[in-house]
């Protein structure tokens, strides 16, 4: 986490210095940031511009949001038509069209995920499981969360993150919304039990980080989950 933040923050700070805007504080947004104004969001959108500018590339808003329209482009779609005496056309490789991905940061990400998993396993926090299509917390779920609250009280400096997960049925997109509803249902119940909302972040992973991969209800029920984890890093 730290390395990624540093990587992001360095060009951001440079960008801010260049155009005289205040600090890097906006970057440290919590996942439950429901109260931010749209101005802030767009401000961060322009952070991207500054990050690009400080990479030594073009500056200005066009770098942040380039003109992606078709205006001014060759209307013939690159085709030259058949010809009775065709001249030779050189075909460029597909390799010039696409950059090669740099797999550098994947390893760091994996380390951070492991750290989070280790801390959460040590805490012994319990998860909430949901019915098909549902984001309401069952009696069993309430009991699990009541026990989690004991740990939260005993560890007053700990921050929790609630991950909303879904089974593979349904669309990727809608499951992200459903996952967020599940995560927020868990957060709201923990707040009801007296946990400070500022200690609880929510994030939805939809059906993108399943706990198991079989096409069976025994697996689906594992994946319909509000996963309570100890937040490590930022």
């Amino acid at each position, binding site marked *: 986490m730290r390395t990624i*933040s540093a990587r992001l923050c360095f060009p951001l700070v440079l960008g801010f210095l260049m155009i005289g805007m205040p600090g890097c504080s906006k970057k440290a*947004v919590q996942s439950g*940031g*429901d109260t*931010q104004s*749209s101005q802030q*969001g*767009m401000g*961060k*959108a*322009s*952070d*991207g*511009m500054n*990050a690009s500018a400080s990479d030594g590339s073009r500056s200005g808003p066009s770098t*942040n*949001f*380039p003109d*992606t*329209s*078709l205006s001014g*482009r060759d209307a013939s779609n*690159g*085709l030259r*038509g*058949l010809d009775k005496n065709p001249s*030779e*056309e*050189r*075909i*460029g*490789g*597909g390799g*010039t069209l*696409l*950059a*090669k*991905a*740099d797999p550098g*940061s*994947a390893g760091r*990400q*994996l380390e951070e995920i492991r750290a989070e998993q280790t801390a959460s396993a040590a805490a012994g926090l319990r998860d909430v499981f949901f019915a098909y*299509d549902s984001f309401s917390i069952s009696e069993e779920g309430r009991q699990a969360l009541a026990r989690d609250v004991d740990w939260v009280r005993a560890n007053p400096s700990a921050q929790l993150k609630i991950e909303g997960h879904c089974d593979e049925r*349904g*669309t*990727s*997109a*809608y499951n*992200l*919304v*459903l996952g*967020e509803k599940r995560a927020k249902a868990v957060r709201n119940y923990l707040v009801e039990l007296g946990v400070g909302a500022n200690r609880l972040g929510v*994030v939805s992973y*939809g059906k*993108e*980080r399943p706990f198991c991969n079989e*096409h069976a209800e025994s697996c689906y029920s594992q994946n319909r989950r509000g996963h309570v984890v100890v*937040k490590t890093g*930022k």
Partner: protein
Amino acid sequence: MTFRTAAFISVCTTLLLIWILESGAADVFLEATRPDFQKIPLGVAGIQNNGGPDWLGGRIEEVLKADVRRSLVFSLVDLPSVGIKVSDLGPGPDPAFKQAGEHGVSVIVWGKASMKSSEKDKDSDIHMDGFVYDAGSDEVVGGKRYVGSSSVARLMAHRFADELVFRYTGEPGIARTKVAYVSEQGSARELFVMDYDGYDARQLTADGFLNLMPRWSPDRRFLVFTAYRNRNTQDIDMIELATGKRWTIVSLGGLNITPALSPDGNFLAFASSYEGNSELYRLDTRTKAMQRLTTNASGDLSPSWSPSGRELAFTSDRSGGPQVFLMSGDGSNVRRLTFEGDYNAAPAWSPRGNWIAYVCRTPKKEYKLCVITPDGQKRVQLTMGPGVDDSPSWSPDGRHIVFSSTADGKSQIYMINADGKDLERITFTGTHNSAPTWSPAS
């Protein structure tokens, strides 16, 4: 045929032509997938190897035939089966071609491919000549000469196929289009881009976490997609394909998903939950002004632009389960489109305007592909059987839909014709490939 029938037909043809011309301004276009569209019979006489590696001619011929078949503009005729045997393929028309014309074959293409014998190492150039014989005029109407490294053999075939489609329809063809998608790498999901036929996959992101639901820019130089910052918050990022350079364009906190650029590139529609629950917003990409399009206590997501850019289809669960709705691009005139079934989501508006594809849940709780007309009058279920189908995306010619499905176990990518025929799997490796999105025509 009586004179009266002939007159009737000519009046009908004129009316049809007027309709074609007028409909150019609207969102509905005449399409080659109409049931009465007559495909043009085309035969591939062969791509002869003129001194190159053994695979060369055969590879180009195989790719060309597949492209011709998928164009849906031509019907691929197997020449030997109609009694046409071509012994030697020169630049002039073979005497047998005229005979093929009499058998109803309208177009015959052939060619030769070579790699100079002195440069048989892997990096040397290949040459391809392609010729097109038109039976209507009984002559070779033209050809193409291509040169490039041996790695572009498939691209030569794709390009030649698109030239054929262009020659006979004026459309650019889809053989050079690409599909962006999400592929599982370990526990991460990264963006990839491949040719429309599933070949030549290349990895675009490698940040080790989740990169989801890519969409192309109209000029196909960029993708917009959902990425997770610090694994805790979704942002909408943009990546430039040629350089791999990537930056954040929307970072509001909460869920920021399903970005979609308008066909003119002037607006980015997306869903964000930063004001509480998932709502739709529209960002003016020039002024950076953001407008909220939906206001209710339910989830609104998955915007898809009509080809005119005037309307959006989207998913909303305001009436209980998710359903597909339509609205104007400014958020006005909202109306529900789907009423059959209790789960309809992930709409994709055809580039021809006449259909909206989406994921429909059947009474047996299977998630399949459906298409519906924008007026809701006609609905067709395209896929059947087990497996979760997801993320339909149209080819730029509006004749195919690419989508993901778990029909064969793991999630893989498939394409299907807009009429439900020719289901074809296009990814075969990896543990999970999903969220395909078809590029605009080049």
